[in-house]
Every structure is written in C-alpha cells, then in structure tokens.
C-alpha cells in the first residue's frame, strides 16, 4: 500500500514547551486516520503542522512522496475543515467554495463545474447564493467540507469538525463524512476528542497524550487490547473498571485480598513471577446470573446505583472494595440493594503492569 502522508521524527516546541516530540506516523493512501486525545495533547498541533500552518521545529513531512516540510499550505495538496467552520462571512456560499480556485487563477467555467460538483455531492445546491449567517450549523459544516472538496486535494484534514454541533446533528454528519470517504476514497486525517467519532469513523486511531502517540491501531484493537493503562481508561464509556493488586503466576490478588484467577487471560509475554498489576474489565464484560456462573471469577455483590439508559442499564456495585460498573440488558429488573452474583470475563479483560502501566 502506498503511503499518502508520512511524518518523520517530527518535533515542535513553543519556546521551551515541547508540544510534539520525535513523532512518527505513516498514513496509507485512502486511509481514514483519527487523532484522538484530550485537549492539549498535541493532536490539533500535529494537524496544523501537516497543513503547513505551523512551522515544525524538527523533522519532515511527506505528502504523496514529496517532502512538503517547507511548502506553503496551498502547495501541499491538502484541504482543511475547521471546528468553527471558518467560512468567510461576507461571501456567499458559492464565493466561499470558489475562493481558493479564484486565488489560484482557475478559468471561470472550470470553477463553475467544480463548485457544482461539490454542491451536488454535499447537497448544498439550493444554498449557493446564501451568506453563511443564514445557514444552520450542519449546513455551514457542509460548506466547509465543500471548500476542501472543490480544490480536489489528496488529503482532507478535519479539525474537530463536529464539536460545535448538537448531538443529533453530530451523529448525522458523522455518517455523512463516512459516506463521503467511501465515495471519494481520499486520505483523511481527523482530529477529535470524541471517542465515539473516533471508533465509528477510523480505519486506524492514533491515541495521543502529551504529544506522544500512545497506540496506533484499528478501533477493534484499541478497544479490546489497549496497549497501556492510559488508553484503556480513555477509551470506553463508561470507562473500564480497574482493580489494583498483585499478580502471582495466574492468580491476581486485589489489594483487599480477593483472589481472582486470570489463567484465561491472553498474556503477551509469559506471566511474570510476582508483580504489582492492575486488572481492567470493561462494564460489558461483567455478567449477571447464569452467565456469571460460567465465568472464571464470580463474586456476590450488592447493587448501589442503577442508571437506566433505555437500551441497557448501567449498575454500580463494589468489588474488592472498589466501585465497579457493569452493563446489562434493560429487561433485567434491578433495584438498589439487590444482592446479585456477578462474573468477570477475564479472557476479554486487560492486565497492566502497575509500574510501567503497559499491557502484560
């Protein structure tokens, strides 16, 4: 597979603050990459570096095999969509779309054809003569995408494009972006702090923290085999339950002495002799009733809080003295104070070294 964007040893400092440090990332042709992380993790900075809006302190950026490290944004073959849409307020939608083409001095009929094509793809034809102020949030974001579309770029850069929209519109546009990607097959780099967007859209997710990519993998692996404690805690809502304790052979002993057999766990390396460790189990990998009895570890528990979510119910309880959430079908009647038996699906859990925080 041909690489579309390749970042080599990229560093960026603002004064003495190191925002990105020796970052490497190869993105394949037509791939949808999501840069995911909390605010301040450097994901938007990285995107701005790729766009050429920020000068890098060290390292190289290649787009389609060409070194663009010193190139102006317009010469990089990229289009960018911003969180605040960044539509030129005094121009109509049509002028907004064609601005870049007019700057490039493209012939009028060519501009017209491209604007019409973009308007057709994004279904904004009837809006062409309106000003951005007279558009809804979703329409504005479509125009912003159209502005990248008309320029026929190789790489689309999205900087939290859906964060300013309400929840309903966000999920609608999310699907549209996915559809657009399937139709255009361009490389897309998408920055977000929303894990649902990341998991639904990405071919691969790069989870970032403090300017370093923690894990780069497809959504399934990210979710099920997080490489370290940070990724495990960041992905998933409600987040993974963590029990700290000691791992001895195939027995995990929680801090309060509860023994949990972890023989079913798929260790990356042979189980270490004895070490401080953290056991992580996702809420949907904790089961009730009959299903619990089939699990390698089961324990009686008392329900403390019940959160009905409609399609499912979240329940809070305590295991080994630590609050634990689990998910169950909303058909199961649960009430506060109920005594139940819950079982952990250890095979799908995660074990981390308490010191290095890496997956075992």
């Amino acid at each position: 597979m041909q690489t579309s964007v390749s970042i080599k040893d990229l560093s960026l400092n603002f004064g003495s603050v190191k925002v990105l440090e020796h970052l490497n990332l190869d993105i394949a042709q037509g791939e949808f990459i999501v840069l995911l992380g909390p605010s301040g993790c450097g994901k938007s900075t990285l995107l701005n570096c790729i766009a050429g809006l920020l000068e890098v302190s060290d390292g190289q950026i290649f787009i389609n095999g060409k070194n663009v490290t010193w190139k102006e944004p317009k010469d990089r073959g990229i289009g960018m969509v911003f969180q605040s849409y960044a539509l030129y307020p005094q121009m109509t939608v049509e002028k907004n779309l064609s601005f870049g083409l007019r700057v490039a001095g493209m012939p009028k009929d060519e501009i017209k054809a491209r604007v019409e094509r973009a308007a057709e793809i994004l279904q904004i034809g009837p809006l062409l003569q309106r000003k951005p102020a007279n558009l809804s949030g979703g329409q504005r974001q479509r125009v912003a995408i159209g502005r990248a579309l008309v320029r026929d770029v190789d790489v689309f850069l999205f900087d939290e494009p859906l964060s300013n929209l309400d929840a309903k519109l966000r999920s609608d546009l999310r699907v549209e972006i996915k559809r657009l990607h399937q139709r255009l097959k361009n490389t897309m780099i998408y920055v977000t702090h929303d894990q649902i967007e990341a998991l639904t859209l990405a071919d691969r997710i790069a989870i970032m923290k403090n300017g370093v990519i923690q894990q780069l993998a497809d959504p399934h692996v990210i979710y099920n085999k997080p490489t370290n404690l940070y990724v495990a805690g960041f992905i998933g809502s409600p987040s993974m339950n963590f029990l700290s304790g000691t791992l001895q052979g195939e027995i995990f002993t929680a801090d309060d002495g509860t023994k949990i057999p972890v023989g079913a766990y798929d260790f990356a390396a042979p189980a270490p002799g004895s070490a401080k460790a953290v056991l992580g189990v996702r809420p949907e990998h904790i089961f009730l009733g009959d299903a619990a009895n089939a699990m390698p570890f089961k324990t009686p528990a008392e329900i403390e809080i019940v959160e009905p979510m409609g399609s499912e119910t979240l329940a809070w309880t305590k295991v080994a003295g630590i609050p634990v959430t689990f998910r169950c079908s909303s058909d199961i009647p649960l009430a506060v104070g109920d005594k139940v038996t819950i079982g952990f699906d250890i095979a799908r859990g995660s074990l981390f070294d308490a010191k290095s925080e890496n997956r075992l």
Partner: protein
Amino acid sequence: MSQTATMAGSPSVAHDDVVEARGPRPKPFFTPKKIMLYTALVFFSLYYLFPLYVMLTTSLKTMPEIRFGNIFALPQAPNFDAWVKAWTSACTGLNCQGLSPGFWNSVKITIPSTIVSIFIAAVNGYALVNWRFKGSEVFFAILIFGSFIPYQVMLYPLVMITRELKIFGTLQAVILIHTVFGMPILTLLFRNYFASLPQELFKAARVDGAGFWRIFFEIMLPMSLPIFVVALILQITGIWNDFLFGVVFAGTQNYPMTVQLNNIVNSAQGTPEYNVNMAATVLTGLVPLTVYFVSGKWFVRGVAAGAVKG
C-alpha cells in the same frame, strides 16, 4: 395541576383590594428611584448643554444687544450676519477672508492624514496578529510606548526632521506628523480587533492559497467595518481639533481652522465682536459634532468590539 386550581379558585376572598399577581409585573413610572435618576440626568444634560446654548444665542444677536448684557436672553431679532462675517470676512491676523480658507486647509490636512494613518495602522494590526514575525511583540511594545511620550518632547526634533526633509511649513509636513502620531493608538485598536476575529478564518484563507494582501483585502477588511468607523471618528475629530501641529508645521498659508479661529478670537484690534467669535467657534466645532452625531451608534459598537481581547 391541583395547585393551580386552588390558587385560581380562592384569590380575592382574602384580600379584596389587592390585585392577584398574574402576567408581567406592573412597572410604575413614578418611583423614587426613577425620579432621582431622571432628575440627575436632566440636570447634568442642562449643565453641559448650557455653554452651547449661550454660544448659539449670542452668535445670533447683534453687538448692541450683546452689550446690553443679558447673555442668557434669547436673541430679539435672530440673524446670521455674524455667521456670514465669521465665514467670509472676519480678520485672522492680516487676512480678512474669514474662516473659510482655514476650513479648506483643515479638510486638506484631515482627509489625507486620516486615510493614510488608518490604512497603515490596519495593516500593522493585521500583521501583528496574523503574521507573527520574530520580534513582533517587541515591535508592538515599542509602538505602544510611543503613545505615552508627550508631544512636546518630540516637537523640536520633528521640526528639525521636517526641515531636513525640506517639507517644513507645508501641508505634507503636518500630514506626516498626524499620520505618525495616530499610529500607536490606531495600531492597538486594529490589533485588538483582528485578534478578536477567529484565527481559523485566517488559517482557512491560507489553506485556500491566499497571500498577505489578498487575505487583508478580501477577508479581513470586509469584516472590519465597526473598527474602521471608530478609527475614522478618532482621527477626524482628533486631527480637526488639533492646534499644536497645525500652528508649528503647516506654515502660515496652510493654517488649519483651529489656528485661524484662535487668530480671530484673539485679534487685538477694536472691540471684540462676541457674536462673530461665537459663530466662528460653532462653525469650527461643527465637523466633529456632525461626525459624533452621525456615527454614535457605530462608535459604541466598534469600541465594544475592539475591547474584547487585549
């Protein structure tokens, strides 16, 4: 539901004279608070308008009537003779052409100075916000510091500089001085305004391939109308009202209106013609006054817009 029902059922029984509260609360006009507020407002308005009243009435009177002594009285037979004289034939020093040459001199000074200074300051502000260069912060600090230096300190050096440039005593000299002195405050104004515009617009324009001037003229300027109005008002009134630079740099034949007004009012010959002086003063103040009246709303909006970010 049941609560509303009981409340609707048993109101006026308990208090016959009290109206049951419903809908918007009544707002009586004559409350002590409002009376005090409006009294104070009216009082201070009169206080500030009074000099204007005296000016206008006196300018419409004849000299004998003024000598009669009651400056607060309305003119018995209002006429514009004094205004005509002030405009066309009052003596400013040796010339007796009235204020009109001064008016046109002021126009010739104000228009180019305003346009040039605002244009340069707008570009400055835009560059300082969007095209950060090495030392741009230092440059800005120096520029701002410039606005704190008293004019008097720089007066003599400036005289020498304009003399060396061979423009001392010309319109160009006074226009140059006004442009330079307008720079710090106007740059600050524009910088703050541009800083309040979303940075992403600028980034989007760069991705679209637009350069320095294209972004300035096609993206930034169309969005800056409010701040341009503020800058226009500041510069027009400031330069129109200037006396010092006009008297020092413009040269006798180019004296602006303010200087000629001074010459009329302070002329030592004969009895002072109060009606002509007053008329001349009102005439001189008319331009700034008009500017304020016409653009008041824009001014407030622009100042508020420029104050968002520091």
